[in-house]
């Protein structure tokens, strides 16, 4: 299971990359693999806000629905429209083409896991 070194991770299996105060958020390959084939992604509207620790959307696979929790607080500046027509991109390319949203941070970035710590977490699972 790929875990890129340059990203940060949450215990809820999201990844995060922060550049110039804007966080790009997605779900990890581990999460995508666990869910199965993703058939629907619900994301917030651009211009809305997300709050760290709160639900910002949903991913549906054939068999399950999972809520997405925001690792950060801020304004949604972009969502990945590709996921509405081809949600399978989250399975096939979770770290690049399958990103979910970009958030302009309004608060601090919470403590996150590095790749090694996230790898250890998924091993436990």
């Amino acid at each position, binding site marked *: 299971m790929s875990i890129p070194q340059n990203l940060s991770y949450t215990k809820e299996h999201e990844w995060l990359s922060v550049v110039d105060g804007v966080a790009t958020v997605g779900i990890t390959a581990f999460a995508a693999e*666990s869910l*199965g*084939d993703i*058939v*629907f992604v*619900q994301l917030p509207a651009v211009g809305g806000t997300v709050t760290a620790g709160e639900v910002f959307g*949903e991913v*549906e696979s*054939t*068999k399950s*629905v999972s809520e997405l929790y925001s690792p950060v607080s801020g304004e949604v500046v972009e969502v990945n429209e590709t996921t509405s027509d081809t*949600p*399978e991109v989250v*399975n096939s390319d979770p770290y690049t083409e399958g990103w979910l949203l970009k958030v302009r941070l309004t608060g601090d970035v919470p403590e996150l896991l590095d790749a090694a710590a996230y790898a250890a977490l998924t091993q436990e*699972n």
Partner: protein
Amino acid sequence: MPESTQSRETSLHAVHKGLGALFTDFAGWSMPVRYASELAEHKAVREAAGLFDLSHMAEIHVRGAQAADVLDYALVGNLTGVKPGRARYTMICDADGGVLDDLVVYRLADEEYLVVANAGNADVVAEALAERVAGFDAVVENRSADTALIAVQGPRAVDVLAAATDADLGALKYYASVPVVVKGHEVLLARTGYTGEDGFELFVPAAEAPALWRILTEAGEPHGLVPCGLACRDTLRLEAGMPLYGNELTRELNPFAAGLGRVVKFEKPGDFVGRSALADLAKADVPRVRVGLRGAGRRAPRHGYAVLSGDVSVGDVTSGALSPTLGYPIAMAYVDRAYAEPGTKLSVDIRGRIEPVEVVDLPFYSRA
């Protein structure tokens, strides 16, 4: 999904592990939920062929001079009327008419039947048959532990089997079975399945299942056969409008409510368990009936979601998914009779969002 250490494993478990299967606990069994992509597995069954391990299903043999009579008494169907070599879909009910399980019963010989029950109801069915055999000249033998069941399903299933056995597959009708030899293995080959496709189910001693799996995998390779897990089995049977015990069928429901009243054979002679209650239920207006729902977009109604007419709750979804074959959401639901007519516009509360659906005929998908 973490693999439960408590679950029972089929004799094919090591084979599945070797294929990289993801496992799920199902009715106390550790079963492959998928090997890679459940959508690819679903598509393979619709367009080529899929290989399933169904060894968690229960195989209960009923033998003896009165084997037919005891099954006529124990089940709601007319099993005397099943010719040797043929099979029938039927149900076992309790005295109140509640469905204990839905079954496929194969008549293997004049005096021998094979009852195939759902994994989750294996003990219930075995115990009920053991009780109901009292007073009949017949014996009930639960051979579930020693029997493996492998299914080959899909339009190319016949090609796959033809590459592995010399048996005359053309002569084997739908819902029929015949003992055959598959590359040295004696199996009971049945033309049955739960996917809406042509296909076969192979009953084999559990110890021989890994060898048979390999034989079928090899035979199926040129025909696009892929191993398939329970995830795609569920979407396949949903598209085919087939009930799943625990979802569309429960002990609280009776065959009439499920829209399966035709399986109850009142015309057969003699009493059978549930006859009196079922006769009353057949005359009564069933308050809620099973229907198909078609949605729009990609958001699927799922088990337990409320079906609405305006603001009024008129039913509950029992199974639902975004149909991999059709590309739109489909669901089965129980709705008040007044809303059961195909074409009726309803909606489903999908986690707080009200999504429109239309009542449609079942099945959603039929093979050409």
